């Protein structure tokens, strides 16, 4: 009961935030937090539930961004349709890559996702139709929900990002309770045992990866319409893949709260250090990320959420001893 009340108050606060704080920058930071929380939750499906490390989610982010921008420029297609088709594109690419990789051991897949991102980025950089290295300016349309463009205020983007995040949270919650989610976790815990129980592991890994790709692509489409300019170095950046993974790992993989918590911490940290250090390009914030990831993977491989839970229930932790690490 207290928990629902707390969640309700949090949601109310989030809904009122743009009215209370009208400055564009805090709203921008919140939008980034929603965006990365959403993509962290997307990564959570393949990386957290199904246990397959993808290090190339920027591929799908870029595919979503480019599909939306190009369909709008060439066919004057609504960005919402572009979003849907972008997600479809992303699903197709994820299946083509996933099929060969999921038959072999985990690190092959991790490396393949990096390689795929490099391949796609190189193709887009050298492809004149999509603007090559210069990129694409999204055509400016009249302000409206259908056009997904708002020029006077960031607040509509804020609500759209929040809405998308809530949908992805609901998807994750459903997954964590559904049969599908149990299959994913069975695969992560022990592939051979899962196979022995009759789970078609390649098939379920593909489903998990396609879901991740589709949601990440939605994030990319949103980004294209929010920033209105995309180029290969900004949407296929390895730093996007990195941040998405870190958000999930810091918070706790395989949990719903983890990636949200991770996004709040990492985006605040990144924006904070950027404001403080004045964008020196010296990458100090990234160095801190690196240290964090090492520290977490050595000291608390299950992430912050697990750590909080252990703090709250020291006995539950003791009870876990003797069970295989999940």
């Amino acid at each position: 009961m207290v928990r629902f009340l707390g969640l309700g108050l949090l949601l109310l606060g989030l809904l009122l935030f743009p009215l209370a704080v009208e400055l564009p920058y805090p709203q921008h930071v919140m939008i980034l937090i929603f965006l990365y929380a959403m993509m962290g939750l997307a990564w959570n499906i393949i990386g957290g539930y199904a246990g397959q490390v993808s290090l190339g989610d920027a591929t799908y982010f870029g595919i979503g961004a480019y599909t939306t921008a190009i369909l709008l420029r060439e066919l004057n297609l609504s960005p919402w349709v572009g979003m849907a088709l972008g997600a479809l594109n992303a699903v197709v690419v994820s299946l083509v890559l996933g099929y060969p990789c999921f038959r072999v051991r985990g690190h092959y897949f991790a490396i393949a996702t990096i390689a795929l991102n490099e391949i796609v980025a190189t193709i887009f950089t050298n492809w004149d139709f999509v603007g090559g290295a210069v990129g694409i300016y999204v055509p400016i349309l009249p302000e409206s929900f259908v056009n997904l463009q708002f020029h006077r205020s960031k607040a509509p983007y804020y609500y759209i990002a929040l809405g998308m995040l809530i949908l992805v949270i609901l998807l994750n919650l459903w997954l964590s309770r559904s049969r599908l989610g149990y299959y994913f976790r069975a695969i992560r815990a022990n592939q051979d045992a899962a196979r022995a129980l009759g789970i078609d592991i390649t098939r379920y890994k593909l489903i998990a990866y396609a879901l991740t790709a589709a949601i990440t692509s939605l994030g990319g489409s949103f980004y294209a319409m929010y920033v209105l300019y995309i180029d290969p170095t900004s949407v296929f950046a390895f730093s996007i893949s990195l941040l998405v993974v870190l958000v999930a790992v810091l918070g706790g993989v395989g949990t719903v709260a983890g990636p949200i918590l991770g996004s709040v911490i990492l985006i605040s940290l990144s924006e904070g250090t950027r404001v403080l250090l004045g964008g020196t390009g010296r990458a100090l914030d990234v160095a801190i990320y690196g240290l964090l990831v090492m520290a977490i993977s050595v000291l608390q491989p299950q992430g912050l959420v697990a750590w909080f839970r252990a703090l709250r229930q020291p006995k539950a932790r003791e009870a876990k001893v003797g069970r295989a690490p999940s």
Partner: protein
Amino acid sequence: MTAELLIQVVVSGLLIGFVFALISVGLTLIFGVMDIVNFAHGEFLMLAMFTAFWLYALFGVDPLFSVLACGPLLFLVGVLTHKLLIKHILNAPMLAQIFCTFGLSVFLKSLAQFLWGPNFRSVTEPLLGGRIELFGVFFGLPQVTAALGAVAATGAVYLLIYRTELGRALQATSEDRQTAALMGIDTEKMFTLAWGIGAGCVGVAGALLAMFYYIYPEVGTIFALTSYVVVALGGFGSVTGALVGGLIIGLVQVVSGFFSPAFKMVVVYLVYLAVILIRPQGLFGRW
């Protein structure tokens, strides 16, 4: 394509291929013994290249001699990596293992950028500069020297692993660490040694590359990705595979770079995907 051009492309491919082989031997050795992919391998290489650069820029030491400093220094980096990080996650889930070396990679890369800036640097006048004529075709002397150095270092590691008692202990540990421990092998020592030698290989390779390659914080990424492809092609854990794979990938890269410079790495990655699809155990891998 004329005969000269063919020789030019093939020999250039083999020259860089020997360097790829040395880097990949380090990666495959760590993987073979530890069952962990070192995602910070490229950054180890970058550290060695910067070490060679600073020795040159500050003290005028030629990269050829820096090999003697970079090898041991990176050996130490490898040992520290094991002692401080890897040792604690030997039995952790693979997720934690991947993230640990991945985090190390991110940390080292951005640390280098913080300390030395993102600029490209180079060793302007290596001791063995200029060019040399082979088979009627001219090659950069630094490239030839680097290849010879890489051959010597790879040969030394090969002898160490396949011809000495210590090497047999390493092999045994990679075969089955529990049985190896039962046979009285100090596996913890073998783990440390694998990290030391594995990182030492890139230490030597980094100093050799510094003779002719640009040096910047991100330089490791491209070599790391290449060496993952090499190791997948040769077979994870196989030293012979790393050597053969290095030469093949060197050739592939130079030949595809000849036809289309922008897509040369794309072809290398496609080789990787093809290996997964057709022969996931690689050329010499045990599966």
